């Protein structure tokens, strides 16, 4: 990421914070909240799925852990909301240790299946222990902000996205980022140069899960009420993965672009088709795999690079011909 890019990113960040001066309706702010939230979620997932190449389809586990942590620690133990939020993150980290410890030993599709299975177990446990989690009926979540709630939560989502973005940039420039990419490309090769693959993947997952849990808590807190089938469902996990894949896994901007495109498309689709908005996810997913495997950002970057290379060759050829 060049210096100029980072300046652009900072400007966008500031503009995002100023947006509520122009956009004031609750509905619009909630859509923007969703876009930024899923951008943050996509960035968080990207660390594990994009950079490390581990396709986790069970990130709803951490999303739900954050939300349920906030709800249950404050509701049942009377802890203040922000402390409960922190405790929720700790729960998510514990889940990540367990899930990662088991799943990262598995390769290929078995890893994916294990992540799905863990998230599903969490969902079913939440559904079937009403005394603890409120069961199917759900549980109340305290609000983290007062006053103009829509604006406050929007700002929180922007901050979270900025945090996730900064984390991604820092990682991609450090040795840790290179290690993740090595593991993605060929884990055996990574081992042969001394990379502790298991530990590296786990650290990436811990960071990813913490960010995801924060997002989950924000989501739960905005809507004030959560149920297992909403917070811990496969649909959430899929949406997070699709956001990153659509935009470009393994790129810094990808998940942000992906979220803008997916959430906007989803919103438009919802107004037309109401119930079947998942259809757009399926269609986009198929299109991405078949035609844009590097995602929007990845494909554009490759195109630009190729143009530059060919432009250079053409100019060179012209130079030779002119001689």
């Amino acid at each position, binding site marked *: 990421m060049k210096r100029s890019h980072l300046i652009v990113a900072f400007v966008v960040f500031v503009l995002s914070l100023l947006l509520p001066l122009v956009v004031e309706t609750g509905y619009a702010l909630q859509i923007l909240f969703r876009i930024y939230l899923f951008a943050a979620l996509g960035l968080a997932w990207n660390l594990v799925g994009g950079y490390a*190449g581990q*396709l986790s*389809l069970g990130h709803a586990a951490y999303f739900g852990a954050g939300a349920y942590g906030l709800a249950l620690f404050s509701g049942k133990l009377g802890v203040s909301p922000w402390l409960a939020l922190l405790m929720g993150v700790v729960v998510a980290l514990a889940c990540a240790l367990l899930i990662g410890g*088991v799943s990262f*030993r*598995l*390769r*290929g*599709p*078995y890893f*994916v*299946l*294990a992540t*799905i*299975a*863990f998230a*599903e*177990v969490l969902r*079913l*446990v939440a*559904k*079937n222990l009403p005394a603890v989690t409120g069961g199917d009926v759900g549980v109340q979540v305290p609000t983290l902000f007062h006053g103009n709630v829509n604006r406050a939560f929007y700002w929180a989502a922007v901050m979270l996205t900025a945090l996730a973005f900064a984390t991604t940039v820092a990682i991609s420039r450090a040795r840790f980022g290179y290690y993740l990419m090595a593991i993605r490309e060929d884990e055996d090769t990574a081992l042969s140069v001394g990379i502790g693959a298991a530990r590296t993947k786990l650290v990436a997952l811990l960071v990813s899960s913490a960010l995801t849990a924060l997002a989950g808590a924000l989501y739960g807190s905005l809507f004030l009420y959560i149920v297992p089938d909403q917070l811990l469902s*496969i649909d959430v996990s*899929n949406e997070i*993965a699709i956001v990153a*894949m659509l935009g470009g896994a393994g790129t810094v901007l990808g998940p942000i672009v992906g979220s803008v495109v997916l959430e906007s498309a989803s919103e438009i689709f919802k107004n037309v*088709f109401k*119930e*079947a*908005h*998942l*259809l757009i*996810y*399926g*269609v*986009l*997913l*198929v299109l*991405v*795999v*078949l035609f844009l*495997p590097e995602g929007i950002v990845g494909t554009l970057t490759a195109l630009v690079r190729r143009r530059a290379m060919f432009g250079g060759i053409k100019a060179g050829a012209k130079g030779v011909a002119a001689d």
Partner: protein
Amino acid sequence: MDVYAALQAVINGLLTGALYALVGMGLALIFGVMRIVNFAHGAFMMLGMYATYVLFTRSNISPYLLFIVAGVVLFGIGYAIYFALLRPIHGQSDFMQILLTLGIGLIATDGVLLIFGADYHQINIPLLGENFHLGSHISVNAPWVVSFGIAVVLAVALYLFVMRTMIGRAARAIAQNRYAAPLMGINVFRVQAISFAIGIAAAGMAGGLLLPVFYIYPQVGDQFTLKAFVMVVLGGMESIVGAALAGLVLGVVESLTSLYWGNEWALAVDFVIFLLVLSLKPSGIFGSQKA
């Protein structure tokens, strides 16, 4: 401890398990033998269910005959999907395959949702009223017995296909060495397309057989995708027989779990077993290959 209740649960479990086995065997062929990670497997079962449902409501012919039509339809769909969508990404990673089939599943599920609506439906056939009695304590609902019988026949047929026919052998050859197979004169794409289509057809037929005894709704297939993978892992990769046995085991385990802990925990128990097997013996209970 009521022995008869437990016995009843085991028998019910075996009956359900036979249909699970059919779905699982289809995936064992697709994933185990062909290494195609099909996350849409349950969705195809659901399509088979809906196909049978539509035909039944129009014609009033028994689902126990219509399931064959569902099988044929799903064979065609499977073949088309293989050529149109799976073949182009042939060399690519598992990652991409998973995402592609996931997308296909989402399209199928929500497409059906758009067309048929989210309501749960149920059909009624005369056979539902009949029960067989074994002694004075055990009874089985007739449709389950019929579907069990048909499922067993289909399972045997699938096994024979994979083990004895040229195409089945070719599919296994490709799985063992995909570079040498074409050198032996095997038309890899055609064999894979047919094998894939047969695996999908098996799922579709299971759907048709399930129609009389299950609620039908668009998302019904989702749990079956996961259960199918559980069966394939439990049964050991590439083992059609293993997946079938695992299906029966799964049915019984779920049934007993429902009896003692309640329905809600059945699916959770499936996953816990799955995770235990993956962590402790990745080659599966009946398998010998490394995962």
